[in-house]
């Protein structure tokens, strides 16, 4: 779920871009370091990025019957770690804006923050945390992918709420509204993405 | 009978893939489709199996126009199986047996019945020995046969194959064609596309030639290849065996009547037979 081009006021656009920039720069530095040591990583990251992009453009079967698009960042974060995923997500979001008109350039910073930073970090933290408690990989992957996806959606709703507080109930009320409206598609989607990630993960570990 | 009637299809962007094509496939037939890259052969196969929907015209199974809802497509695909060109697009499961059982299980068969159809398909393709092998450790030729088995196991009445011989060495091709001959014997019609004119000539009952998104001709091999002007216009050459046999006939080296040889073996036998006859005549004369 992305914020559309032009939806956020200029000051918010700049603010979110500034908030995301350090993470992206950190990720870029990390990639540059790895690429210097192993040049073939460049091609592998490009292929993985394409995989995440195509995954995010896939229609996912949803329990409610409606179709929606997964973020794929849960899987990516579990595979490559969160900082690299931030950079891949930034490129994916740029591509989505320019190839699909999903999201936008002015809202790129805000979208990177929700889909490229909050989502992957939540997913990665949950994945490591649940594994550390010893609840098993399946639960860890499901929780990471589902809640990572939900975290992206919650963040987006708050970003919109801060920009457009409810005249009666302020930011909290506005967040509740945005959460409510998008819940129809996003909650079943998050569950589907969680289940799908588990299926993929289990099959991949067979190879 | 599986039919496509006066169908047009254009790709997004408006480029016409096929226009006004009509073709009927009878149970038990063996049909080969020839034509240059990009002529619309693959489009025809995907139209026949309901993957894409014609912009105009219709696809009919046993006289009934097919419906493009879930139930309609399900009904169609039980009877019409399509094997795509690249086997890698068709293998998903970890082992050969699991992969081939994907279709039969989706048909709603009980595990035992599904197992039977899988084993039959593996036997028909002569790959029983690959049963437990991981799919990602197969050679290209093996993957190709497993992909075909995955459709054969669903026991379709019409089996469509897109370039089944592409990329295979000649020995594997002859094995594959032998397998397809066995399957076609059992009331199953086979329609395949190929660039191998000689193979098509030796295998098919009927040949269809595509040119520029249209069906340029459709008929018995003898008739098709006799039309030199047509072949020339389509930038196609007749099968080598046919052409040599014709030249030999014209030169009086083969008898002027009787069926023309279709395969390498037929032609070589005919040449040998002629030799034997000539030897006999020579011997007679020398007496």
């Amino acid at each position, binding site marked *: 779920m992305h914020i559309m081009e032009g*939806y956020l006021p200029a000051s918010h656009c700049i603010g979110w871009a500034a908030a995301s920039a350090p993470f992206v720069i950190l990720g870029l530095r990390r990639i540059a370091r790895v690429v210097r040591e192993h040049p073939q990583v460049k091609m592998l990251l490009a292929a993985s990025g394409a995989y995440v992009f*195509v995954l995010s453009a896939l229609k996912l079967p949803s329990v409610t019957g409606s179709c929606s698009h997964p973020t794929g960042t849960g899987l990516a974060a579990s595979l490559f770690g969160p900082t690299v995923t931030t950079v891949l997500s930034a490129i994916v979001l740029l591509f989505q804006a320019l190839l699909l008109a999903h999201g936008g350039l002015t809202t790129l910073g805000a979208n990177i923050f929700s889909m490229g930073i909050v989502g992957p970090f939540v997913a990665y933290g949950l994945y490591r945390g649940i594994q550390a408690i010893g609840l098993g990989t399946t639960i860890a992957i499901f929780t990471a992918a589902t809640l990572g996806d939900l975290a992206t959606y919650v963040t987006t709703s708050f970003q919109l709420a801060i920009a457009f507080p409810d005249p009666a109930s302020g930011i909290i009320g506005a967040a509740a509204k945005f959460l409510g409206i998008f819940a129809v598609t996003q909650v079943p989607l998050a569950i589907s993405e969680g289940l799908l990630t588990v299926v993929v993960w289990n099959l991949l570990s067979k190879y | 009978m599986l039919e496509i009637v006066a169908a047009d299809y254009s790709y997004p962007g408006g480029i016409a893939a096929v226009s006004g094509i009509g073709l009927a496939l009878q149970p038990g037939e063996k049909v080969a489709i020839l034509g240059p890259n990009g002529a619309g052969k693959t489009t025809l196969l995907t139209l026949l199996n309901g993957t894409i929907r014609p912009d105009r015209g219709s696809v009919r199974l046993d006289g009934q126009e097919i419906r493009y809802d879930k139930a309609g497509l399900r009904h169609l695909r039980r009877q019409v199986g399509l094997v795509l060109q690249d086997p890698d697009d068709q293998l998903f499961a970890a082992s050969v047996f699991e992969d081939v059982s994907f279709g039969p299980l989706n048909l709603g068969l009980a595990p035992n019945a599904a197992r039977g159809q899988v084993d039959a398909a593996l036997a028909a393709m002569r790959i029983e020995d690959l049963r437990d092998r991981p799919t990602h450790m197969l050679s290209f030729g093996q993957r190709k046969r497993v992909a075909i088995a995955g459709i054969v196991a669903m026991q379709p009445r019409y089996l469509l194959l897109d370039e089944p011989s592409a990329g295979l060495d000649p020995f594997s091709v002859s094995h594959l064609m032998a397998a397809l001959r066995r399957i076609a014997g059992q009331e199953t019609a086979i329609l395949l596309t190929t660039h191998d004119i000689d193979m098509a000539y030796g295998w098919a009952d009927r040949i269809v030639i595509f040119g520029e998104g249209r069906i340029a001709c459709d008929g018995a091999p003898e008739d098709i290849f006799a039309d030199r002007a047509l072949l020339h216009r389509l930038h196609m050459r007749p099968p080598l065996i046919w052409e040599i046999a014709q030249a030999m006939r014209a030169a009086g080296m083969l008898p002027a009547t009787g069926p023309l040889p279709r395969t390498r073996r037929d032609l070589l036998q005919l040449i040998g037979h002629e030799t034997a006859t000539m030897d006999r005549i020579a011997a007679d004369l020398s007496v």
Partner: protein
Amino acid sequence: MRLIDRNAQTNRWRRLPALEKAALAIGMMTAALCSPGWMAQGVVLVSCAALLLWGARISCRDILRSASVPAGFIALSSLAQVVTLQLNSAWPVLGLSEAALLPAGFIALRSLACVAALLFLALTTPLTDILRLLRRAGIGPEASDIALMMFRFIWLTLDCVESSSRSQANRLGYDGYRRSLRSLGLLLAALLPRVLNRAQRVEAGLAARGYDGELRFIDLEEKLSLVRLAGTAALITTIAMIGRVGY
């Protein structure tokens, strides 16, 4: 999925310098985003549509189709804005705020104008030209090479996904939720090793062409035109001034 790219690759303005098209798009986007009045947004919307239709010669149908998804999202978000939520009573109370109608309409129009500017860039400029621009702007060779290869891999991966899901549908793999989810899982699991394998093969394929870690080629872009740049500047200044007026 291929709609915008197809137009970007084939429109009449595809070989114009990406810098000029980007300057025009981003200028209009900024003007629309920063103008308090309604009129500037309207002018941006109309100019973008006119440039796309009569300049780049993109069909009206394709413009509307590529705008339909963002327009849907904008409509949904605007709905959230006109509804109010009371949290200080015992139950949360939903209401329609008449006062919010006008601002919500303004945001929707602003967003549509910005989407139009985005579409102007996306529909006229191949994505790789924009990446080259970003590279010249200094985003670093690693990220720009990764993005460039990613663009190529996207089409290859998409072809694989399309053929694979067709093949699964041929074998009735998409009947019902459980089976669909499992089929899609099988597809994605089989796809990842294939995609990574492809990366290795491309590495070898480029090595055969002397690849030493840097992607370089001769582009076919036309030269920058001062006339066009001046026209761009004039248009954006005019829109900004209209925005200042405050209607």
